């Protein structure tokens, strides 16, 4: 037979809660009340953190900030499957994942204030710092996943990126390496529909991002990224796949960036307000609250108490941020190498003594 089909691909989209919080009973994950309300807490925590960050930026108390508003379900759904011994390899919008794993908020604020000390991750966490060059961190996630396999550690590595990042060569090289070397890596793409002003359809002519996995010989799935149960379920499967040594996979979480790209951007220049309204009706937190209420696990009183608790926590973290002593300027020399070479020693010395030439 001169022509025969050698490959046929198929990609599923998973959705468990509809936009009004109605659950698909057949797909509903078996989670306890504590687990479900725990997920909700995470999402509310992320939103409170985010609202405060935008506030701080407007008041000049931190610098340019990238909001995660609208992406809370995507970030909580994956984070809920991870433990402190798993690796998080973020892009620059995963504050939610970071805080869910226990990274203190004031460090995240410090990062966005322009303070390198925000990147000093506590020793009990395996979180890499935010990575600004789009997509570049995914290859590290592949390498870390190779390391976990070579050492036969049951830890999973999650590499994060956006829809725009899937156009960079690094994305493709990362998936390819992870496939070839059976890395214990989950690639988690938050397709929030936009890369600054460029819409998702301009990044790839393909129907989905998830299907790109197939070309690299790893599984891929698309999920409703504003449905925390769907993200949770897909992530659970992907994390178990990696943890048990079966290798890498790709999750495309379809969500929406509710705000500007960063505080330096103005989305009104390129987005249709109707589009935003459409997604507002699909808010991940509102949707999940409706589900919890319908299960009689949550009340308005619970909600008010949680909001107050989270607001207090955020304010406390801002206090911690603002009581950090100013960094000593000379420290930008100190971490260049384990041992500073003569030129840096000389420059550091002159700088420290106030020689301004």
């Amino acid at each position, binding site marked *: 037979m001169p022509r025969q089909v050698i490959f046929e691909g198929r990609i599923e989209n998973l959705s468990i809660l509809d936009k009004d919080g109605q659950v698909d009973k057949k797909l509903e994950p078996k989670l306890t009340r504590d687990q479900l309300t725990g997920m909700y807490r995470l999402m509310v925590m992320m939103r409170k953190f985010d609202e405060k960050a935008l506030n701080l930026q407007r008041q000049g108390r931190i610098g340019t900030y990238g909001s995660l508003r609208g992406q809370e379900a995507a970030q909580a759904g994956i984070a809920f499957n991870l433990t402190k011994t798993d690796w998080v390899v973020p892009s620059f919008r995963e504050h939610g994942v970071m805080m869910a794993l226990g990274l203190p908020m004031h460090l995240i604020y410090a990062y966005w204030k322009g303070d390198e000390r925000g990147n000093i991750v506590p020793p009990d966490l395996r979180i890499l710092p935010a990575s600004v060059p789009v997509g570049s961190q995914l290859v590290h996630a592949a390498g870390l996943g190779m390391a976990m396999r070579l050492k036969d550690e049951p830890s999973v590595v999650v590499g994060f990126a956006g829809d725009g990042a899937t156009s960079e060569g690094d994305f493709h090289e990362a998936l390819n390496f992870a496939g070839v070397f059976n890395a214990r890596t989950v690639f988690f793409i938050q397709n929030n529909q936009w890369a600054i*002003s460029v819409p998702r359809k301009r990044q790839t002519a393909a129907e989905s991002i998830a299907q790109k996995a197939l070309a690299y010989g790893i599984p891929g799935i698309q999920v409703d990224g504003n449905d925390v149960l769907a993200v949770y379920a897909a992530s659970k499967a992907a994390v178990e796949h990696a943890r048990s040594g079966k290798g890498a996979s790709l999750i495309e979480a379809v969500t929406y960036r509710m705000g500007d790209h960063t505080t330096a951007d103005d989305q009104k220049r390129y987005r249709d307000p109707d589009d935003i309204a459409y997604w507002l009706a699909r808010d991940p937190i509102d949707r999940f609250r409706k589900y919890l209420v319908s299960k009689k696990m949550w009340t308005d009183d619970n909600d008010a108490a949680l909001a107050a608790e989270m607001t207090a926590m955020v304010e406390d973290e801002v206090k911690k941020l603002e009581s950090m002593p100013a960094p000593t300027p000379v420290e930008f020399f100190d971490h260049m190498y384990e041992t500073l070479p003569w030129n840096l020693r000389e420059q550091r010395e002159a700088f420290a003594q106030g020689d301004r030439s």
Partner: protein
Amino acid sequence: MSARTTDKTQKLTLVQAVTDALQCAMREDPSIIVLGEDVGLNGGVFRATDGLFKEFGADRVIDTPLAENGIVGSAIGLAIGGFRPVAEIQFTGFVYPAVNQIFAHAARYRNRTRGRYHVPLVVRMPYGGGIHAPEHHSESYEALMVNTPGLQVVIPSTPYDAKGLLISAIQNNDPVIFMEPKKIYRSFREDVPEGVYHVPLGKANVVKEGRDVTVVSYGAMMRPSLEAQEFLARENISVEVIDLRSLVPLDIDTLIASVTKTGRLVVVHEAPRSCGFGAELTALVNDKALVHLLAPVERVTGYDTIFPYAILEHHYLPDRERVVAGIRKTLDF
């Protein structure tokens, strides 16, 4: 210096002059196209391509997928295919993926094919620090570009020069890396002629004439250099200030004539010191004007460190005080 200017001028900022240059050049030559991330409807993250999408449409002002190597690589193909692409890299810190195409191909096609093919490409990129941006948004990689044979490297410091140099770059038949000092994108306006005019590549500008010491700089560092000149004028120290405008080709004659006259040279740039462009200028003066030197060449530069995050960046960047101190060192030698 300039050809075909109309009499009319507009008061423009540096970034507006960039837009104006693109618009004027594109109106005259339909083979010029602009491509990059967010350059279309959004008009670029710094608005450098504002309005071009509306005027010239999606085939000439192209929002690309997010891939710098793709942008420059496809621009090389477009150039060989008969277009004059002007590619935008959103920030100099993000040029690394594209370095493969810039270094391995754009710079080499003419030589590799003994002139059969050439690459009339401009790669524009905002560079430099001082805007309180996140990591990777403050870099100055001119020395990397200068060290790659086959590239021309142009850095304007005024709106007038930005427009005239960019038009020259676009009309040039070889690749030009056009680095725009984003810190001063909007810091001042000046009269910019309407229509097409040229500031030639390879011609420095003696911005202030002086007797005692020559200060050479380019881009955003022209500001502290000129502030130092003004400051020292009050002490009757006469500083000559040269704006190189293009690093490749370099106006060696203007440089050597000035150093021969003053006997002292201070080079100012914000890029790291080691193997920075100042090192090359020092070596050139050593080669061509050593006997005229009254003091060693002084370099006022960034440090050999990673560019610090926002709250420490002002400690890194050369300012007037550091330029003044550098000048005094050469005078007190």
